[in-house]
């Protein structure tokens, strides 16, 4: 059964290879090859899942050693895979949601000439992400990590003819590099201090403590912070969040893939996987929770002000990932809920993005929500699926988001002390804002009067429902959004499933679970009410009003790009300018000076070589005289 693990990765990798190397003759069937192989991978995942379920909870870790990659003295890197409950969860999410997005893309990209390449990239993305979650050591994980970065670069910039898309791809890649550097430093530190980076010996497991159990807290804090930096890059957490909004330049299925199943979840996976390190480094954990809390508010506020439907959803993603990171930072109390929210979020966010894509598909690729309005009559399936996703994300009782988010808020309070109150408060506030901006999106898009106008060519959009190939994945995801939370929570099945890997701790919440749930629901209702008051009862202006200071700031992503520009870009320019100056004056000065002095010296020495035999004879004769003098002197002494 272990041998199936490699096939999980091999299937989409084969798809990528075939599609990218196959050339034009595959243009007609390329999308189906990609989708088929993606579903094949999902099928392998289901088989493996069934196999795992049949075993004892303690025996559910499968490993597959493919080959020894690098072996130099004590340095040992293997290409080996580890499939345990955590990886399995991710595998199912990635392949399941990923396959649905493949299927959806078949319809969405139907008229794109380069769709064969697009599906190749999608498969590559899946393969890289699967490698990331299945790797048995940090080095192999890093390969997958970089592969995800590469695939995201290719996909975000897929419409490279648009300068904005090309720029966004570059931005995503560069920001990710910062995080990647954190991961590479963390791996180097691991090797330096522990001599290995394999999960087993390093992190322990199956009841045995790993090497990190004996390490000093300082070392673990350093490694933890580096891992956090890596997670910030991939999961778009403050301060490396700026690429996520621009990444919306890619085709909508890409956004769905990046935001739901892959990429942004990588950071959460890394933190949960490295739980043993963070558990032993409370300072690093605290930083993780702070980053999570800041990001969840940051993303929520940005999401409130965006008129671009995809950018609003992007802010929402940032915010939801903030929840997960916050939960992951809480330690064993939160790991399970971080993953649970990740999975439910995977369902409803994918559904929301696919719904947004469906709306755009019917509206001639218009993304401005102020030009939507009243679309529920024109695209009922999209409306229903989007609506279910909406209810899930705001935490409507009974739907998946309610269960997972409520648990995170509980866990935040359960951290205890002032920190617990602050974190819990932030999470509650975030829930209210989430309800507000999602209701805003919902109302502006599907309710009210129609606001679209003919464009300058006189083409008036004709909103229509998307084809079946697009709606079916949306329906499947909507069902998932509704049912996942309940399934996971039924008899605490998800907690029992993950507990052997991540451990679980109930903590001591200062408030009873009922009170917190009540507060969450109340916050949600307040958020919805405010949004309804603002956008439901009054007509939405077709041109955005100027808005308050906060709104304007939020529209500009809370000035993150300006901040980056002033601090990093300008600072970098100044740094390079001064470095260039130093290079020109000091380094070049030394080099040129050496050359010049050698040249000058040679110019002088050249005169000695005048070609006159007699001059040479004088030097010889003088030399002989000096030799004799030296000999006599040595004799005399």
């Amino acid at each position: 059964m272990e041998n199936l693990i490699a096939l999980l990765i091999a299937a989409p990798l084969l798809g990528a290879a075939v599609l990218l190397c196959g050339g034009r003759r595959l243009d007609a069937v390329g999308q189906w090859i990609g989708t088929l192989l993606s579903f094949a991978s999902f099928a392998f995942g289901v088989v493996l899942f069934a196999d795992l379920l049949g075993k004892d909870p303690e025996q559910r870790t499968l490993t597959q050693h493919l080959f020894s990659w690098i072996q130099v003295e004590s340095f040992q890197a293997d290409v080996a895979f580890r499939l345990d409950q955590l990886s399995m969860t991710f595998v199912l999410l990635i392949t399941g949601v990923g396959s649905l997005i493949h299927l959806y893309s078949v319809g969405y990209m139907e008229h794109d000439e380069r769709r064969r390449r697009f599906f190749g990239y999608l498969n590559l993305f899946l393969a890289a992400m699967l490698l990331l979650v299945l790797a048995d050591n940090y080095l192999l994980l890093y390969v997958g990590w970089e592969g995800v970065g590469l695939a995201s670069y290719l996909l975000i910039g897929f419409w490279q003819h648009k300068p904005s898309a090309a720029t966004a791809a570059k931005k995503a890649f560069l920001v990710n590099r910062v995080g990647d550097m954190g991961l590479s430093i963390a791996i180097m530190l691991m090797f330096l201090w522990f001599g290995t980076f394999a999960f087993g010996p390093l992190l322990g497991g199956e009841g045995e403590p790993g090497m990190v159990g004996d390490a000093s807290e300082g070392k673990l804090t350093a490694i933890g912070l580096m891992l956090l930096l890596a997670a910030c890059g991939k999961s778009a957490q403050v301060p490396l969040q700026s690429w996520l909004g621009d990444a919306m330049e890619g085709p909508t299925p890409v956004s769905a893939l990046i935001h739901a199943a892959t990429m942004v979840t990588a950071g959460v996976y890394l933190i949960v996987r490295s739980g043993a390190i963070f558990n032993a480094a409370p300072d690093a954990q605290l930083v993780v929770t702070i980053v999570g809390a800041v990001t969840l508010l940051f993303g929520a506020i940005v999401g409130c002000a965006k008129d671009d439907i995809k950018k609003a959803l992007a802010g929402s993603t940032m915010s939801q990932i903030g929840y997960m990171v916050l939960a992951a930072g809480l330690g064993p109390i939160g790991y399970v809920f971080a993953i649970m929210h990740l999975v439910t979020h995977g369902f409803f966010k994918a559904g929301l993005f696919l719904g947004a894509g469906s709306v755009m598909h019917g509206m001639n690729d218009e993304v401005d929500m102020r030009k939507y309005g009243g679309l529920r009559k024109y695209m009922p399936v999209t409306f229903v699926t989007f609506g279910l996703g909406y209810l899930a994300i705001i935490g409507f009782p009974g739907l998946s988001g309610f269960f997972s988010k409520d648990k995170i808020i509980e866990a935040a309070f359960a951290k205890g002390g002032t920190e617990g109150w602050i974190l819990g408060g932030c999470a509650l506030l975030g829930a209210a804002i989430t309800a507000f901006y999602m209701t805003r999106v919902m109302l502006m898009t599907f309710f009210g009067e129609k606001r679209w106008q003919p464009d300058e060519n006189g083409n008036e959009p004709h909103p229509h429902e998307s084809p079946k190939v697009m709606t079916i994945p949306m329906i499947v995801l909507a069902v998932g959004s509704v049912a996942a939370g309940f399934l996971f929570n039924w008899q605490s099945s998800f907690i029992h499933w993950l507990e052997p890997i991540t451990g679980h701790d109930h903590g001591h919440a200062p408030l009873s679970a009922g009170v917190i749930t009540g507060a969450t629901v109340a916050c949600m209702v307040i958020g919805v009410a405010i949004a309804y008051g603002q956008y439901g009862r009054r007509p939405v202006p077709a041109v955005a009003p100027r808005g308050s200071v906060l709104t304007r700031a939020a529209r500009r992503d809370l000035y993150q790009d300006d901040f980056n520009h002033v601090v990093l870009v300008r600072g970098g320019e100044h740094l390079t300018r001064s470095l260039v100056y130093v290079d020109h004056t000091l380094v070049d000065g030394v080099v040129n000076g050496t050359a010049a002095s050698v040249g000058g010296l040679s110019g002088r020495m050249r005169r000695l070589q005048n070609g006159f035999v007699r001059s040479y004879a004088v030097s010889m004769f003088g030399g002989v005289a000096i030799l004799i003098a030296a000999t006599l002197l040595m004799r005399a002494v």
Partner: protein
Amino acid sequence: MNPVNYLYLAALLFSIGATGVLIRRNAIVVFMCIELMLNACNLTLVAFSRMHGNLDGQIIAFFTMVVAAAEVVVGLAIIVSLFRSRHSASVDDASLMKL
């Protein structure tokens, strides 16, 4: 008189010859100065032969003469061909490696 004076004389002649090599430009004169130096050496060899009471020094001097004869033959031939090509017997004119 101590026969060592022959050595002093030889040293003097050798130095004069060496100086001549350095300050004269006419290749023939330079060559003559070299001969002078060789002769000074021969004088020392002969004086040493007398000093040690055996004939080896004279044998060496004899060989020196033979070699000097050969050297003069070749050297003068070189000077003649040099003069043919440059129309000058000055060693300074032969300061370039090509004509």
